[in-house]
């Protein structure tokens, strides 16, 4: 799983209420996408192009268990890289098969608009614009397998534990 695209940057402590505000709670997953960062960066969700990469700050995704990772995936973002990621957000990222990597120093290594190249499984992060390379923490094999399978729901569907989506 490799990605090469321009990056967007957000600051430290981005919380799940900013990604998926309660105002969007009753909407469909597709509709919720339009609310990403609507409080802190209005209009941003409408500018994201499919395949773009998000560079987060420290403790990205702090807060609630809501499926904020699903919104970032449905927005078309290919991947998230942050110095460290909130444990609960990280669980949702794995389970919704939204590739998310922890990479110390990544927030300082990129300016918005730079082109990044990410080797997800190996945990390599390159800034092609600035000609630099960083080492991320690769996902443990058990979790990588879930991401590669497309998330938890396809696995449960396949074995008949949950019904397919109507």
């Amino acid at each position, binding site marked *: 799983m490799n990605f090469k695209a321009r990056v967007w940057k957000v600051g430290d402590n981005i919380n799940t*209420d900013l990604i998926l505000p309660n*105002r969007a709670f009753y909407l469909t997953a597709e509709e919720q996408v339009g609310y990403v960062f609507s*409080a802190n960066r209005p209009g941003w969700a409408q500018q994201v192009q499919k395949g773009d990469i998000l560079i987060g700050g420290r403790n990205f995704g702090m807060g*609630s268990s809501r499926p904020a990772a699903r919104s970032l995936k449905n927005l078309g973002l290919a991947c998230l890289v942050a110095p*460290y990621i909130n*444990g609960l957000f990280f669980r949702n990222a794995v*389970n919704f098969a939204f590739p998310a990597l922890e990479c110390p120093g990544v927030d300082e290594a990129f300016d918005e608009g730079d082109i990044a190249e990410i080797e997800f499984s190996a945990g390599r992060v390159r800034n092609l614009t600035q000609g630099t390379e960083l080492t991320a923490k690769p996902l443990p094999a058990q979790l990588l397998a879930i991401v590669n399978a497309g998330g938890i729901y396809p696995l449960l569907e396949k074995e008949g534990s949950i*019904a397919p989506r109507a």
Partner: protein
Amino acid sequence: MGMTIAEKILAAKSGRAIVAPGDVVTVHLDTIILFDNNFVPSNWRDIQRVCDPERIVVVFDHRVPAPNQIAAGAHRTGREFARRFGIKRVHDVGREQGISHQLVADYGYAVPGSTLVCSDSHTCSGGVFNCLARGVGGPDIIYAAVKGETWFRCGETVRYELEGALPKAVTAKDAFLQIAGVHGDHATQNVEYGGPGVAGLSINARKTITTMSAELSAEFATFECDDTLAQWVRARTPLRFEPVAADADAKYKAVRRVNLSALEPLVALPDSVVNNSQPVGALKGTRIDQAYIGSCANGTQDDLELAAAILRGRRVAPGVRLIVVPASMTVYRDAMQSGAIATLMDAGATIAPPTCGACGGGHMGVLAEQEVCITSSTRNFKGRMGEPSSRVFMASPATVAASAIAGTISDPRNFLN
């Protein structure tokens, strides 16, 4: 090699001799709690089998009674799920209604040494019972209900040694705000609370600290088991349990001391819980529109009694709305019998039924543009309780009650004799 409380329970529940930071382990889950948000159409997946109905609990708490048709439909889906699989522990609107984390305390669902998951982030609340409790994601909870297990990443543990005793009108919330203000987030780490100061803290007070540990982004938050805790649990469940203490040679990332005697009332400024605490005096005179006492962190009987003690014989300031939300029907009934509810109502409080309510901006006290709220609930993120331009200050129920009387953020020590 010595282990911390979290490491020992992870080891016991994954069938390993040792678990250390960096390990990813698959653990047996003793208690799996589903709540109403899981059953909303955008989140729910139709489960075809469950691991064991005896290990599952269904709670409606975020949106009760149903404020609209989607919530009502989610409750109906949840009831059908419980019926289909013979799940007996169902907390619907009515006699056993409450916020899931309060119900865990009321009904003894989390016993020492056990594991518990729920897909609400404040599930670490159950760590007060010397239990490994964690908020997981929606897909996790569906997987857990089917398989009866989940994976956890083991992080390093930070230990807090609590010493001394809280001064008058200073609460466990202030102790938490002190830790969060000074030490910031603990993402990827566990927190373990112990020390001689624990004995002087009620279970409700300790529970405020473990619940709020979600705001430290901690993986797990645990207290040791003492006689007070063992008695609480034994009074509520016949389940047998084995308390888990940290090994004497357990390895910690850090051990930090907190002198409870030296604390003062603190307030977290809007938009972030961590690295954002100020002494209440620094906010003196800040005008408020709403004061909120409730949530899984501070909707206990202790909290309602403390607020009543401050509000007794006084009135909520004109133009200010004081909303009080008992965290469960058990709390509500106890506070009715003690007279606290009557005192709060006489002062001008509106009592809402047990629900997560406005803590998550759901209902029962949502904020309009530019409004200012002081809350004892769990989060003050931008837009958390309503419109994004509203501002949420977070403090103890004592500080919230005092501020409701004054109409501006106020020091509760001036209101308690």
